């Protein structure tokens, strides 16, 4: 026979049981997410694209992070911006490293010339219209005609027609007095280990490769910046956005089922 006390306690017991079940489900969901984040973070970043389910989840989450933190500069689809002089992230052409997820993750974490001690910051394009073009390398300034000659040489490297004699003088400047070869390499192919762009591939970060923008780049120099996100994003978010950026140029590795 049910007493009054039993009748009173029954709804309390049911409520407590329901709360317990809800808490257990929430714990399971949280633990699953925690474990998934753990699997994502402990895996070799370069091996994740081959793991389609993990990659798919990471890319989906990374897209939200990208939209929030990166799209304002690199554009929504990662196509970059000529106006903002930000590089495309979807063309497979990388200024720093070879574009592996681990290298992208490092760039996202520490940035480029972000003033973080671990950022990419070994090189900087000096402006040649200063008394000392580069304080660290004691590079001498150039005259206007020197810069015009160098511009002609760079146009020639792109296969563009121009003043051959000026280009020949520019070639001498490139390889001797202006010291361009020291960073851009003898063949002007650049150096991905230090973030120095190739000058032969018709891919321009500043301007559209016309004479005026090349002249200005030599005259005023450049030092593009990408912030360090290590203190802003969580480790999981950094890896997710790195994998999303990787997938922009490797759509076949985005983890989506075909």
């Amino acid at each position, binding site marked *: 026979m049910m007493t009054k006390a039993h009748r009173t306690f029954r709804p309390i017991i049911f409520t407590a049981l329901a709360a317990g079940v809800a808490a257990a489900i929430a714990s399971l969901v949280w633990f699953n997410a925690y474990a998934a984040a*753990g699997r994502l973070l402990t895996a070799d970043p370069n091996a994740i694209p081959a793991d389609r389910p993990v990659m798919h989840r990471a890319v989906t989450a990374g897209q939200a992070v990208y939209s929030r933190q990166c799209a304002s500069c690199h554009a929504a689809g990662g196509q970059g911006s000529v106006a*903002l002089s930000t590089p495309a992230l979807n063309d497979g052409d990388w200024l720093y490293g070879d574009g592996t997820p681990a290298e992208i993750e490092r760039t996202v974490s520490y940035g480029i010339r972000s003033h973080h001690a671990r950022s990419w910051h070994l090189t900087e394009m000096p402006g040649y*219209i*200063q008394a000392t073009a580069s304080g660290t390398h004691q590079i001498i*300034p150039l005259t*206007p*005609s020197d810069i015009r000659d160098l511009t002609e040489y760079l146009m020639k490297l792109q296969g563009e027609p121009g003043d051959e004699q000026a280009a020949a003088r520019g070639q001498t400047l490139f390889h001797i007095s202006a010291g361009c070869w020291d960073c851009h390499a003898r063949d002007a192919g650049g150096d991905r280990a230090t973030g120095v762009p190739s000058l032969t591939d018709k891919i321009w970060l*500043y301007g559209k490769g016309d004479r005026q923008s090349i002249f200005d780049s030599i005259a005023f120099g450049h030092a593009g910046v990408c*912030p360090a*996100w290590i203190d802003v994003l969580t480790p999981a978010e950094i890896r997710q956005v790195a994998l999303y950026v990787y997938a922009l140029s490797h759509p076949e590795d985005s983890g989506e089922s075909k």
Partner: protein
Amino acid sequence: MSDTPAWRDPTQIHAGRSLVLAATGAVIGLIIAGYGLFTARGTSTLLVPPEDVALVNQQPLSRVDFVGMLKSLYDVDLADSTPEQRRKILEDMIREEVYVQRGKDLDLASVDPDVRGAMVAAVEQVSATSAITDQPTEDKLRAHYDANRTLFTSAGTMDVRDYVFKDAAAAAGAVTALRSGKPADSVLAANGGRDSAKVSSEEFYFAAKIHLGDALFTAATAMATGAVSEPIEADGIHVLQMVKNTPPTQYTYEDARVRVLDDYRKKAITRAQANMEMFLRKRANVLISEDLR
């Protein structure tokens, strides 16, 4: 009527029961708080977070750095690395961390000038990092452009000849002759002048300023192509003949945006570092010796 005692019947209000339960809760709370307070050893965990490869005295060693060092030292990915390679990198990282921690224990910053310099540079970098992460809006950049328009111009160039004469009369005669179109060589010979050769070809404004000096450069910038100046007294009597003057032209905001952002960031970094120094100085208890006050 139920025969259940009143204090056990939840349908009935019982002051004694409420008091006992409240007191019990308070005692349990005090016990937990006391235990936590008197046995606290700081936040400690036995689990290594997945984003790290190790904890050294609870100080994390980042997995990103671990993978980066594997790549730098052995040019291998994590998955392709051997256990020996991973162990070597991990041992190196742990060694560095324990030495850094020992350095903090020894308070090396107070005695080693290199450590002090590195710490000053690192703190400056921290404040610069936050300034860079804060992305300015287009409105802010445009306002910066409007406030500093003179910074965002093309580079002016000039090709100018600087002739030096013994006295003002000779210089005045040369000015008349040059303005009438006579060749410079014959004018110089007739008036006892010479080319200072300070500027021998087209130069950027900054270089011409260095070579000519402030007074002559200021006069030169106001001259049109083909013009001949009045005699100028500046460590001798000078006459300038402008072969070609191309003054700087103003860039539009759109054309100058990259330079605007660059300049904005540089100034933001300077401001952030100055603010940090001000904050640190304000917070510091600095006592200065009486003889230096």
